[in-house]
């Protein structure tokens, strides 16, 4: 057993910062930047041709985000592995704190007011959960995966934050946490019989408690969102307004769109939250099917990088972290575009790198940093029972 940070067995591993920078996947950074630039353009348009108030700040955040990405990428994977559980524990504590003392905004408790900055612990948890699960499965003997006793801690790791986020209530993030977490469990190699069993169990749970859950546990606005997603015309001035106007904006873009800054739906305020969750509709209105597909292709390219990085990692921890980050990005994109196209209920999920918002941007760039770290350290092998800082 060698000491920590000892790369003596792998002389080809990059160790110095310079070498590591050389290993950075600049192609991935290029495409990330391209997506962010689409975002800047849309935020510029959303403000009727002004950098203020959104585009400017978003650029600044992205610049900071790129720095974060690079710094995170430079840090040894083993450090991230050793930080996994403490980070998870801290994030969970913060979630509990939010539950107890959180700031109330838009009818739910999501933020912690820490003097100069407000913190959204659910965002931290997205990263922390990926790290924690990756570390857990990294250290787990593959054969034990078949033992439910060893599966339970992983499920508990997912369920605890999901529960706290769910009661905030922030259904969108809770779903992302559960889906992202289960995704990691899936790629870690959970046996099919469990998957099928869990699927059947979930189906029977829904059948048994679905109605009770619908009536007792969902908030009115959550129920309304689901109903209006299925039939926006049911209440075109009320709950269906947002989704209806979004579909009008999207559909009216046609193949080539109405032109940059020419979107009538967005510029005449028919689109609510055009700079955040519904920014995709604005892009679709102004640049049409071509513009929308262009952005989707950019996401697919970035996701492709993620999959490639996950597959090329020689450490199980690296694989799982990379796939966790990639999966999260995918879920963001799919849920956001799905909801603005009216195929999913409206849950507050932003469009990654494009929607205006500081916390989400930082989480994402941090995630990309981890992905990049996996890439930089792809040749590193970490023994299953590797001793760590914590």
């Amino acid at each position: 057993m060698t000491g920590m940070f000892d790369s003596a067995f792998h002389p080809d591993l990059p160790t110095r910062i310079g070498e590591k920078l050389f290993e950075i996947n600049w192609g991935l950074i290029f495409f990330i930047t391209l997506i962010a630039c689409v975002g800047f353009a849309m935020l510029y348009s959303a403000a009727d041709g002004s950098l203020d108030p959104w585009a400017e700040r978003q650029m600044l955040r992205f610049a900071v985000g790129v720095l974060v990405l690079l710094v995170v990428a430079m840090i040894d994977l083993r450090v991230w592995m050793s930080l996994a559980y403490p980070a998870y524990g801290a994030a969970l504590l913060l979630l509990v704190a939010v539950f107890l003392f959180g700031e109330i905004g838009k009818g739910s408790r999501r933020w912690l007011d820490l003097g100069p900055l407000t913190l959204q612990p659910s965002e931290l948890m997205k990263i922390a959960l990926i790290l924690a699960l990756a570390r857990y499965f990294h250290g787990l003997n593959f054969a034990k995966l078949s033992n439910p006793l060893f599966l339970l801690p992983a499920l508990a790791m997912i369920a605890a934050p999901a529960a706290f986020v769910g009661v905030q209530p922030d259904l969108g993030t809770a779903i992302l946490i559960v889906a992202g977490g289960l995704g990691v469990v899936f790629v870690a190699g959970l046996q099919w019989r469990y998957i099928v069993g869990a699927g059947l169990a979930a189906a029977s749970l829904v059948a048994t408690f679905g109605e009770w859950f619908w009536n007792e546990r969902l908030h009115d606005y959550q129920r309304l969102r689901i109903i209006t997603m299925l039939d926006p015309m049911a209440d075109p001035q009320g709950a269906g307004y947002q989704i209806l106007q979004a579909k009008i904006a999207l559909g009216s873009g046609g193949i080539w769109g109405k032109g940059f800054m020419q979107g009538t739906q967005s510029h005449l305020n028919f689109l609510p939250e055009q700079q955040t969750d519904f920014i995709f509709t604005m892009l679709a209105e102004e640049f049409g099917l071509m513009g929308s597909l262009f952005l989707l292709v950019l996401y697919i390219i970035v996701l492709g990088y993620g999959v490639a990085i996950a597959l090329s990692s020689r450490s199980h921890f690296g694989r799982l972290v990379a796939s966790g980050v990639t999966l999260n990005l995918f879920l963001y994109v799919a849920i956001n575009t799905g909801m603005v196209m009216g195929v999913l209920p409206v849950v507050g999920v932003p469009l990654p790198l494009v929607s205006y918002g500081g916390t989400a941007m930082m989480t994402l760039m941090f995630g990309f940093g981890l992905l990049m770290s996996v890439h930089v350290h792809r040749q590193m092998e970490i023994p299953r029972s590797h001793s760590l800082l914590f």
Partner: protein
Amino acid sequence: MNDKDGLRGQVFSRRAALLSLAGVATFGGLSARLFTLQVTNGERYRMLAENNRIDRRLIAPRRGTIYDRFGVELAKNVQNFRIMLVPEQAGHVEETLDRLAGTIELGEAARRRIRRDIARNRAFVPILIAENLDWETFAYLNANGLDFPGIQPDVGDTRVYPYPEVLSHVVGFVGPVAENDKGTEPELRIPGFRIGKDGVELAFEPQLRGHAGGRDVEVDASGRLIREIRSEAGEQGADLVLTLDLGLQKFAADRVAGESAAIVVMDVATGELVALVSQPGFDSNLFNRGVDIETYRGWQNDPYQPLYNKATKGLFPPGSTFKVVTALAALESGSMRPEEGVYCGGAIQLGDAVFHCWRKEGHGSVDLHRGIKESCDVYFYEAARRTGIDKMSEVAMRLGLGTDYGFALPYTKAGRVPTKEYKLSHFKSAWQTYDSLNTGIGQGFLQVSPLQLATMTARIANGGFAVVPRLVRSVGGVTHDHSEAASIGAEHAYLDRILRAMTAVVNEPRGTALGSRLTGPGLSMGGKTGTAQVRRITRAERATGVLKNDELPWESRDHALFCGFGPTDAPRYSIAVVVEHGGGGSSAAAPVARDVMREALTRDPARRPTFSPMAAAGPATALALKDGR
């Protein structure tokens, strides 16, 4: 690295590939969804987006003016001074209203309406506070606008009828658009828009209305105006010139004030109506402003029926006025020679039935001239018996009974000229000789309107031309519906005889309307009286003596009728007078006809130059109203 690690690496790769596949499928689905929304349904969403963006604001057209034949305004638009309130500029609405209450009348009901309107509209939409303000109040509010935050003075149009009681039935009135009026025309959606509800205002609604101007404006989601895209000038409504002479109309209406009566005066050469009176009338202005329920109920329950146009819709048995029809039918069929005498002993026997003459003691030997002059019933029983219903109804139709002429006013009635088929289909029994006898003296199934009586008389007096009644001279400066009258194909000799006999009615001893003789230079009148029975006179009554008309309750009294023409030598006007439950034609209707005919011949509207309006095409009043959204 041990075997297990290799195994979990392989499993990981498989699972990652699986998830990637699922991801690709998801993106495929999303792209398909995008295609459906943007390409397949793109056009529909583009239209929805345009509807969102573009709002049509309508500019109310100015309604056409209605003139009499000499250019007197019978229906016009006057400026309607009103004040609006823009809630978002008012700050504290109640405070502004309190302050306004010191200047204008603002009751609790009005305030309730204002509050409701404010609640229903967005804060930048002007709400009507009060309208029809006088100039002083309006000017004061204009000058002191700063004291009343949010107040917006506004000038609109309102319809005014300067002679409401005299012309209520002819000109009609306008009123707010009702739910069942809603058509597709954009004007109907202008708040506060008025449309014709009766009379000429209703009949000529399309011409009088004009077309709304419009502005297409771009609005944002809250409805606030962003910019104007397109504006289109409206077209004001066409002006109407009626054939009526307001002076004569007023005279005639005054002459029968307090009665339930109708008077029609017609130019026999053209069919133009110079007076068309139905009394009592009502204040047509009230319908525009909103008539209160008590007033309206009062009109509805009034036995004199002020809301009903008796001149065109009132149907009466023509009584003896119909005898001129029977006479012409008898002459044309040859069943009666003019000089042929019929003996009147006060009654005629037909089978078991006895048909009485109005003069119990009889007229002795009666020819056509005396028959008409003295209105001998027995003569016309005999004429009707010999002539038969087929010929009588044929002549009646030619003289203009039993038709509505496609007249200008809505709901004009065609009345009834009975035929054998009519009785068979409505009463399931065959026509009998006694039906002909009843018809011959204008009773039975016959129903005529005063308008028809005037037309019938005109067709006799003008030498047999089928004039039809005309009410509208021009629409928008263009002569309206004027066609040469065709001949009714009657022998002049016969018409002359009838005219001479009608002249005798008013001018010769024993004529039934001798008391209403019209004298003076160029003044003369001929005509025929008629008394239409409302109730049956029973055998018992005949024995004990018929009650005098004045002794009966009003609604059981006879209708008094008179149809006439003047002057007698070269007739220019025909007249019909019906006084509902007025009693005898000679005592109640003929004197009215004499006075109105004197006025008609003195004013002689048909010979004076008439008014023709300039083809005005000014811009529609700038009254921007929001197309409700």
